[in-house]
């Protein structure tokens, strides 16, 4: 039971990681003058979209999402709308946090918002996929010892890794090296993506390592 779950999670994570890789490589063919630094926003949205699509597809196929009690079309539609609203709210939330951290308010609002979209995709979207638009469940997962399945643990790890990655990504900005990747928000989005990839790699390993200590409450 354990090994099956971990293996499933590992393959899901591998697919997501591969999608990020593809999202970096494919635009080189399709878009003229594409480079991660030069046309950073294109890269950012390409990564965000591919992660979003792959996440939704994977979790749809695996059926990780909590079983819905009502199976009516109406209910599904309302869930979908709620999810969209949550996603937009989380984008705004991240935008606000980044501005509070010192990003310019008006000047490069588009760049800041793009970073917020990327962060939301890496964190909130996965929450929406795994937990559904259910705030209570979110609070449970992100409080101490609230994880009830390997997926919850994986969610904790990848989300915190992405955010910590973005946090560390801000460090090189004050350096006076005049490198292309110091331009806002390149280092932060690269940091977030790097953190996310690290989280994807670390989550299965960590769970495997601590499998003895982890006791999930049965639902």
């Amino acid at each position, binding site marked *: 039971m354990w090994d099956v779950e971990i293996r499933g999670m590992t393959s899901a994570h591998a697919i997501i990681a591969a999608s990020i890789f593809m999202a970096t490589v494919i635009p080189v063919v399709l878009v003229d003058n594409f480079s991660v630094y030069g046309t950073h926003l294109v890269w950012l949205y390409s990564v965000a979209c591919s992660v979003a699509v792959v996440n939704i597809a994977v979790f749809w196929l695996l059926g990780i999402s909590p079983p819905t009690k009502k199976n009516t079309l109406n209910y599904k539609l309302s869930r979908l709308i709620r999810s969209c609203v949550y996603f937009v709210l989380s984008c705004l939330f991240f935008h606000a*946090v980044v*501005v*509070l*951290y*010192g990003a310019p*308010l008006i000047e490069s609002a588009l760049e800041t918002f793009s970073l917020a979209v990327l962060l939301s995709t890496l964190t909130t979207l996965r929450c929406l996929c795994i937990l559904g638009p259910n705030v209570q469940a979110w*609070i449970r997962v992100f*409080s*101490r*010892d609230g994880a009830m399945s390997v997926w919850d643990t994986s969610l904790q790890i990848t989300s915190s890794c992405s955010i910590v990655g973005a*946090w560390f990504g*801000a460090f090189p*900005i*004050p*350096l*006076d*090296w005049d490198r292309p990747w110091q331009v806002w928000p390149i280092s932060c989005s690269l940091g977030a993506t790097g953190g996310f990839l690290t989280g994807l790699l670390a989550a299965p390993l960590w769970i495997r390592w*601590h499998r003895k*200590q*982890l*006791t999930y409450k049965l639902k």
Partner: protein
Amino acid sequence: MRLKASVFASFCLIIELLGIALYLRGFFPVPVKSSLSSKSKLSDQPAEPLAGSGPNSTQLPPPLFKRVVIMLIDALREDFVFGPNGKRFMPFTRQIVEEGSSHGFIAKARAPTVTMPRIKALTTGSIPGFIDVVMNLNSPALLEDNLIRQAKDAGKRIVFYGDDTWVRLFPRLFAEHDGTTSFFVSDYTEVDNNVTRHLDSTLKRADWDVLILHYLGLDHIGHISGPHSALIGPKLLEMDDIIKKIHTSLTARVAPSPCPVPESEDAPPDLLVLCSDHGMSETGSHGGSSEPEVSTPLVLISLAFPRKGGAFQPSTVEQVDLAPTLALALALPIPRNSVGRLLPAVVEQAPLREQLRLLHLNGHQLSSLLRDSNPTYQRQDGYELFRVAEKAHGNWMKLYLEGNTSEVLGNLGRKVLKQYLEALQSMSLALSKQLGRYDMYSMIVGMGLILEVLALLLLAMPEALGGAACVDVPLAPACLSLPFCLLGLLACSTHVLMCTSAEANCYFCSLPWPLAFSALLFVAALLCSLAAMAGKRFSLAGDPRPKVSAPGPVGRLQAGKAARDELAMLSVSGHGDIRPTGAHPHAIEAHSDLHPSHLCHICSVAGGNIAETAGSSFLAQTRSQVPGDSSLDWTLSELDILLLTGTVGQTLSLGASSFIEEEHQTWYFLLNTLCLAVFQDVCRKYFKERRALDEEREESSLLPSTTDGDPLQPSFSPATELGVSLGAEKWLALTTPLLTLVCCRLLRSLNQTGVQWAHLPDLGHWLNNGDHKVFLSVLAVFSLLLIFLLVQRHCSLVSTIALALGLLGIYSYRAAVGSVLFPWQHTSRSISKGTGEARFVYVFVLGILFTGVKDLLCSQVTAAGGGGHLRSRGLWEVYSGMVLLVALLLRPHNLPTLACCLLLQTLMVQFVWERLRYDAAQITIMHYWFGQAFFYFQGNSNNIATVDISVGFVGLESYVEVPAVILTAFCTYAGPVLWACHLMCYLSSERDRAAGALSHGCYCLAVLRSVPAALYVALTTALRYHLFIWSVFSPKLLYEATHVLIAAAACLIFTAVDHDHACSL
């Protein structure tokens, strides 16, 4: 010796301060300065030494050269001209040097080999002292006596093209100039073309006397790709072409004329000087003192020199020798602070009388400089030699004027010449030894002291943060031990050895010997007690500790109140043992008297081992030796991890110059993260752990501390004070961190500081713009009102009235100065200095401070009963006096900063710190972070230029040094001081804090200040040859030193306020 933690911390900081003072004295040697601050004048020149008063004896010899072209190629290394590269890439120059009429030297530059100080050295002939440069960052113009100013005063027209450092150093001295900026290091063609494009037209003209060209391209190539790059060759060829062009043009003036002899009699020939400010290292950088960096070529080309043949071997001279040589060759006075000496080769074609005369002038200037700078100048060899030579010169002159022309006269003259040269060399050496060199011995002794204190503080951490807050320093036993005797002997003999060696020239040696010896013995004693303490700690660590035998974790100690929050988690602890929750409060009760507060929450590992940082594992390790704290595993809460890594990481970031320049970004970033972490804690408290909340309510009835109903205690409980319900309190607690975030974001855009983004528009500039005076006035009024409301809460009636009047006085002062509008004021009223208004405020500041101190003293006398209340009121009054003073001193657009500071303090105390039960150490770290952030919110930076010197004039008619310096320092450090002061008020007034809280806070403050200061001192020692040591690292060093001073003062006040000094055994 058993000491209270606060006393211990104050001692440590004071010792550290002494260490820093010694270190600074070694780091910034006192520069050699002539006692006369004015510049040399022609009329001051000494007469020729001769028995009688002959004619023309006070006149300078005629100039040897008519016009001078100084071509400075930045970072031209010696081997680019004299080495194999020179043969390949500078063929013309090489040929001239080897066969033409020229002189070639290798000129040694002094460290730091950076352009600006080297230009100063070239033009003043002095070696600028380190402290000079730091202090003159404000006024970039070179005020010292220099060659350029002398030439200008002598009526010469100077034309300059090249690096705009020159234009900034010598404003208004150039008849014509075109500065190119060296900002874009990647550009190495345009910078030079900008210089060369003027060359042809200028050389054709005859309306200049001195032409200075500074080429930057080579330096930029060095920075990009190093001295072996393929770009070097073409650049050198380009430079060679330019030299050829200038040379041709200068010689063409003389050569084509049919009869050159009479004309060259009238007008002396021109001179071309090829020189460089510094070389470049093998990696292409410069700043250090490695051989390739300090070796520069110096080539003088003129028809006045004889052609030479045969093998050429450049001799080594000092870079500073150029200034006196040029001055004498152009018949200008030598710059007063020059330590260089005349290059005799340059004048060897002149008649012997003139040569002697020039050498005498140089010798006279050096000897008077030596007299001014060296108290023991009469014992210097050079001075004595010069006296002898001067006498011989006089004898020679007598013979000469008598018309003696025999062989004897020539021989005698050459002997005098030799004597002069020896004297010059000796004096120049003695002078330059005092300059521009780090006094490593003093620096090392100072640094040793600082690092020892840091180690002492860190080793004492478990004891100092323990419940008793007492530290055992085994100083007395250490002093009796054998190692101490050996170490002391070793130190003293080293000292004797260092100070009696030939080149001894350090501050520490110039101290009286008993003082120096006792300092060294103290260092040794400290080292021994350090070793004893370390031995005690680590031998304890080696012992098999008696494990707590209790089966459940009941016996496992929980750190005070942290446990309550962790309760829910622990009940499903990973070890599988379910804790009987009922027993828990008793555990707290039993142990809270021992360890009420800790830096780290101690709890058993529930699930994950959070990755431990080096600091946390150290803490965990040391903490585990405290008796009773024998829990098996250690984790820290997220907040602890953040506090520790933030403190350590911030210290480490100081190794990068950019992070020093932009240090405010680091603090803002950390502060934001801290607020988010606090927000998370608040959320966890109010949302997640409902269960724990219920427990707490049960528990609080068991804890004795919350049940006391002393009516005299100042109430910090929000529910009673502001009359808010419990539900509202929850929401206020939740919004406080968010409000803090918003406040910080607003304050951040009030003053842009740093370097990279300092030019961006900010609110401060907008408000200070004359058009927005109304906004500024409204903002000031609003801020002052807010300040009044927030401060008066805990004041007595008298202080409240004084405060209100004082704040009114501040507004009228600002109105009088003209920065804000006064409602009833006629527009025609002239702007005054506002001295009266400012003094009015000073009276109230002193009054409030006096009331506060009086209350404090009363509380000391009546320690029992109402002492606590009196004490906290007194402290608050001292605090409010300081707030009033800061409000007066801060510029009006910074008043919102002060208001925000008070607002955040109030909110944090009311809704976060009190509620979440952080321990004293956490509170101290948070206060320290806030203080640091507010230091930068005020508009400060790590650059001396941002210090607001105008503060020193508030309320004073003229500049009076002592109050001006104190006021400026106080205003600059207002943020950290206010937060430290608030920390003191908070820790001493809180009801259910343990008695040691104030001691803990004081100790933590000392550690927080010592860690960055000690590491930064070590860092600057390691980086003393860094390219930015003057512009970035040294100012920061001064800031750090001042901050330690402020922290030491704060700790002393903490100790004085702390009631129980006694430390029971």
